[in-house]
């Protein structure tokens, strides 16, 4: 099972290390983790995607809550939240040509954020499945390098 968890933590020295340490100490599998300041500069928000069976996921949530620097752990369920991830992909234009790649970018609403003689770098924000689909479409062009942020998540409604 895969689960997305948001964690609000004190924005202090060593807190990120503490959270990451928890995962390795306890042997939890982490898919992705991102962290940045919230509107309150004293608080950071982490979005963590973890894998495991229900017992493991329950331990992950409890262990995160137990950290002194954690103020809130938010568990997301299917359909109750939105998730967006950013992808940067450097794609070769030598195999199938620049126009075709630009056409894919246009159709998929990806930005062209860098242009080189033999490549284009696309920037794209979307849900996990949209990113997967775009990467499938880009594969035939030869993907030179990618960077992904891992998803950030917010609950729906109020």
């Amino acid at each position, binding site marked *: 099972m895969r689960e997305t968890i948001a964690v609000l933590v004190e924005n202090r*020295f*060593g807190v990120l290390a*503490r959270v990451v*340490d928890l995962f390795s*100490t306890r042997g939890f599998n982490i898919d992705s983790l991102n962290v940045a300041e919230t509107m309150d500069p004293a608080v950071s928000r982490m979005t963590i995607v973890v894998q495991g069976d229900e*017992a493991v996921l329950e*331990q992950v949530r409890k262990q995160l809550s137990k950290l*002194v*620097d954690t103020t809130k752990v938010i568990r997301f369920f299917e359909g109750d939240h939105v998730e967006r991830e950013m992808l940067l992909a450097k794609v070769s234009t030598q195999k199938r040509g620049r126009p075709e790649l630009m056409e894919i970018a246009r159709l998929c609403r990806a930005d062209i954020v860098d242009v080189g003689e033999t490549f284009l770098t696309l920037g794209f924000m979307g849900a996990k499945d949209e990113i997967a689909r775009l990467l499938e479409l880009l594969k035939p062009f030869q993907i030179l390098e990618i960077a992904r942020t891992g998803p950030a998540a917010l609950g729906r409604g109020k």
Partner: protein
Amino acid sequence: MKPRSGAKVIIESFVQEAVDAVFGIPGGAVIDIFDELNKSPVNFYLTRHEQGAAHAADGYARATGKVGVCIATSGPGATNLVTGLATANMDSVPVVALTGQVPTSMIGNDAFQEAYTSGITRSITKHNYLVKDVNDLPRILKEAFLIAATGRPGPVAIDIPKDVQQALTSVPYPKEIEIRGYKPTVKGHLRQIRQVADAIKKAKKPVILAGGGVIASGAHKELHELATRARIPVTTTLMGLGTFPETDPLALKMLGMHGTAYANYAMVEADLIISVGARFDDRITGKLSEFAVNADIVHIDIDPTSIGKSVPVDIPVVGDARAVLRELLKILEPPRTAAWLKKIAKWKKEQPLAYKDDDALRPQYVIEQVCALTKGDAVITTEVGQNQMWAAQFYTYTKPRTFLSSGGLGTMGYGLPAAIGAQAGLPGATVVDIAGDGSIQMNIQELATACLNDLPVKVMILNNGYLGMVRQWQELFYAENYSFTCLRRGKDCPEDCDHSFENCPKRAIPDFVKLAEAYGAVGIRVTKKKDVVPAIKKALATKKPVIVDFIVEREENVYPMVPSGGSLKHMMGGMA
């Protein structure tokens, strides 16, 4: 407020938090703290190794219920504390450890005596800090004492760079403090507690499983009332020894790997297990898939991560043991347990803890005599291994905070420094370290601390010349291949030692009697059963630290035993 140095703030925190004993060793990065400590009313005990300081602070905390404090310098001082902090962490002991650090401007430069202490101690403490600004120090110290002592207690480490100790601050030491992310649940959920009461009322074969959490929360009186009013037998974990008087007919003593047969049988047959402040460690559950298959499990624990971690729980109650039991007692309706107690009484009679009581000098006999001659009223510390299990089995515990032992981490070398800490906290108490000849050598240097500070601890070495517990496993599970567990083996031994002891060299290294004398303690050697009682009497009557070196049966094993990963149903040995 008048500005004062970080070092002064540290001493201020000791006074404010009523710390009356501190253990440690000075060094370059903590001289400022010691400079102030010397001018304060706080009792300081200079240990001979930082590990000894950490265990002494731990022993002090376990024996008194107060927070134990230790201080070490940067680098090696801090890394030497590590085993002690990990020990306290596994057993939920409130300790505050202060370490010096190189000046902030030098951090990360591989400076002299620099180690990444906050990184090293992160996973073996309840919480830790690196203080980068002296203005944060008063708050951090206040938080550290609060976090160490409340909720599920544990060690907190504070790494303080030398320049932060010297810098001035006018921030006062806080009287109260609120930590946004730290709110332990003390009161149990009433609906859950009602469910517990219902389950108890319907139970036919209930068992109470009491752990170290009962001691931490001071819930032993409530536990006693629950057990005696509801007529439910009580078994304890190693950490729970002393939570329920073993002299009571309802007591099943310790369960698990080396627990009593009757405690383990009771767990196997129980239809309701009420766990209070225990965490279902692998040493008590044995094979998980066969653990308590007939029982509903109630789990009362202040730490939500303990609940459901290894054993599926039917009725979880998050809360402080004492607070939860108090609520439970208000609505308790006793079940009918007469038939169940009769069955247990039969097991007790048929399979008591036993050993071969012949003319040989056996370790179990020594512990029974220590118990008899101290009237069960001593504070017992242990090392780790066979000595620890025999101390758990053959001393009769009746009060909390009288059995101090490294349960979770299993730290050899714990017993002597822990005894020193306990004696420092309880000057009038009889403190006895039950030791093995292997373990005692891991922190023997602390004998100097005991002698120089008039801490008259008694060390009973059950000397079998082996790393005995490992030897036992080698005998039982490794085809008697006794590799590197004989402590008397030397170059002059036959290469193919057959462990018949006929060819054993006549020497003892070290000679514990001479060693005791070298430190200024009293040393007594006992080689015959008839000399055991006089030797213990003499040790107890001596106002100095004493080592009694009991040369015991070399191949005595700890029984009963549930092999690691086995089911509690299948125990080995234990009959006289």
